[in-house]
């Protein structure tokens, strides 16, 4: 049964490709698409050490529920199949293969994590399945020549780190920098971008580097070492659980550096609140999305639309959690791509339209932050703005910086 179906789907796909050359007429469908349905696959860590990210998968499903209630995209509803991989690469391989080979999805959207996406990077490109808008900021997701079926979404880690480095060079040139990073692709990407941003000052200014494993229970000893190194600037490259621990521990032992927190963990709801809002005062991060707790947005129609969606479709989720904004924006980006595809819903055309977003604005991105892609630019969002935490919310300062130009 399944084999017959997949064979038929393959023929439909080949037929679609053949038609592309000639006079295209009528609808063309890749696997997972019918006149009424588009199947989309996803993996998220709903269990395991990175399970805080599971909120993203749930919120994306909630957004597609809204799209479906409003009639879908060009009359087609979205069937969003999101599976748990527990942040374990072998499990991701299994789940992604299930989505592609059993469930026959059109594309993989927003699968989360750097090691997990790396494990299926080659598989998806060999199978020519779009690995679209992956939920990781590693810089390796934007290589259209080598991996034409893979595209990132959020600003990549290296560019973000360069923005902090530039700020430190300008405002605290005599700072002594301590760094804490997660010992994996993600942490090292930030570290590399940061050192590149500091340039020849890096060796002089960085006085301590500490790392931790994602499986570690705490990072208390690393924070104590950083304090003892005499650092007065702290670049905090940690995932949510560890970010909360770092903020609390630094405050508890009376270490008050100029604390830069990577964008990955700047959620007020899931990081700063558990760490203690008073302890989070003075943190600096960079933003590209609107912070749902920031009062300056809360009367805007964009925010009201978001909060209405949250109330109706994602009522159990935390309304202060940035992840719910992230998922909302990311899901809207995919909806835009599918809209642009029209009735030509082949995998090739999905990638073509994903690489054809021009000054696309999203309601919950910061004003001035737009999405641009092209066949040679697979980094959709590249602008950010710095922000400081005042004990209640992030307060933006300075201009929107185009990170692709901050070199």
């Amino acid at each position, binding site marked *: 049964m399944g084999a017959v179906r997949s064979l038929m789907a393959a023929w439909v796909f080949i037929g679609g490709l053949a038609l592309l050359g000639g006079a295209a007429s009528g609808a063309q469908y890749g696997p997972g698409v019918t006149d009424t349905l588009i199947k989309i696959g996803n993996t998220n860590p709903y269990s395991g050490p990175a399970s805080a990210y599971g909120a993203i998968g749930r919120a994306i499903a909630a957004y597609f529920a809204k799209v479906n209630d409003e009639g879908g995209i060009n009359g087609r509803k979205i069937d969003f199949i999101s599976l*748990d991989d527990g*942040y374990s690469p072998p499990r991701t391989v299994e789940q992604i293969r299930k989505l592609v080979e059993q469930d026959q999805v059109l594309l993989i959207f927003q699968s989360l994590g750097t090691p997990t996406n790396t*494990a299926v990077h080659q598989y998806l490109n060999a199978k020519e399945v779009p690995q679209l808008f992956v939920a990781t900021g590693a810089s390796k997701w934007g290589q259209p020549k080598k991996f034409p079926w893979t595209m990132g979404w959020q600003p990549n880690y290296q560019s973000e780190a360069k923005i902090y480095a530039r700020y430190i060079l300008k405002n605290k040139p005599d700072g002594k920098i301590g760094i804490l990073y997660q010992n994996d692709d993600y942490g090292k990407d930030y570290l590399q971008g940061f050192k590149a941003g500091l340039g020849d000052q890096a060796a002089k200014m960085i006085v301590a580097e500490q790392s931790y494993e994602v499986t570690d229970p705490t990072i208390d000893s690393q924070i104590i070492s950083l304090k003892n190194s005499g650092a007065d600037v702290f670049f905090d490259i940690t995932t949510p659980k560890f970010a909360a621990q770092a903020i609390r521990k630094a405050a508890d032992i009376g270490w008050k550096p100029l604390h830069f927190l990577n964008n990955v963990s700047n959620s007020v709801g899931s990081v700063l609140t558990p760490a203690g809002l008073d302890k989070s005062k003075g943190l600096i991060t960079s933003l590209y999305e609107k912070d749902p707790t920031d009062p300056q947005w809360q009367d805007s129609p964009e925010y009201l639309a978001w909060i209405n969606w949250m109330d109706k479709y994602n009522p159990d989720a935390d309304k202060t959690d940035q992840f719910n904004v992230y998922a909302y924006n990311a899901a809207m980006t995919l909806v835009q791509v599918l809209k642009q595809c029209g009735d030509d819903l082949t995998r090739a055309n999905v990638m073509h339209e994903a690489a054809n977003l021009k000054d696309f604005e999203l309601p919950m991105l910061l004003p001035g932050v737009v999405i641009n892609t092209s066949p040679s630019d697979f980094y959709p969002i590249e602008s950010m703005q710095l922000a400081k935490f005042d004990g209640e919310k992030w307060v933006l300062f300075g201009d929107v910086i185009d990170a692709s130009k901050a070199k």
Partner: protein
Amino acid sequence: MPTGRALALAAVLIGAGALPMLLGDYRTFQLTLALVYAIAILGLNILTGYNGQVSLGHGAFYALGAYTAAIMITQGGVAYYWTLPVAGAVGFGAGFLFGFPALRLQGLYLALATFALAVATPQILKSSHLAAWTGGVQGIVILKPDPPAGLPLSADQWLYYVTLAVLAVLLIGAWNLLRGRSGRALEAIRDNPIAAAAMGIDLALYKTLTFGISAAYTSIAGALGAIVIQFVAPDSFTVFLSITLLVGLVVGGLASIPGAIFGGLFVELVPNLAEQISKAAPWAIYGAFLIAFMYVMPYGVWGLMRSLFQRLRRKSPATSRLRQVPAPAKNGRSKPWEPSDH
């Protein structure tokens, strides 16, 4: 009786051989992984089930095999099948050496020492000193081997048959090892080390060799796992892997060779089944399955099957004369489903 057993074996082999033809590539891939886990669990069973040395760290040997294969394939350009004997040899060496400190540790203390091994593994793999070989946190991507030219098989089907063949060879090896004198020696050490020593069994030699063989089996499984998954990374070999192998061991049946296959199927398929039942709390469902298994089959899947076979045999007239022998079960101590070799 032997003809019945041979028929059953032939049926199992034909069934196992036909499965990939009936299933799609994804299901075949899943079954291949189940067989890979079965090999690893078989290795753990030799150590824990037969010899009574509890290991919470076999994930480390699995990782060792996986990395041996990955490094040989990507850096040495070696064909994937040559990596299996090498992984086995490396695993044997590592296990044999680890067996020496293990001699001084019993029961839970040994479990803790091996647990330390499992905890340390991801960090050692990420270490910058080894990064030139291990790829550090990035891991190593392996290309999937193609089936030999001329065979009408997909890459997934081919790997399934390779894994099945390796499993068959290792099953026969384990059977040969465990059924005779050496098997009795291993179980004697498990049940009463003092008596075993008094019988002239060299405890140190047997225990370290058992550790080595067990680790070799698990390393071969790791190498196959790496080839099947096409990717190794430190995050793939967390403590959870070691626990998973132990779960498979107990579910399949302690001190039973075929039990490893059921253990492999359980640890591979039940998490997926649990996710299909409830997306919200798959691990709670998994836990419920585990508890149910332990209650229904306290001696593992193979223990249950054995007791069923025995009941059937008792009912058949050809063996009814056995009933005249006074059953030891009368004293209430041993249970009818208890495997005879337990």
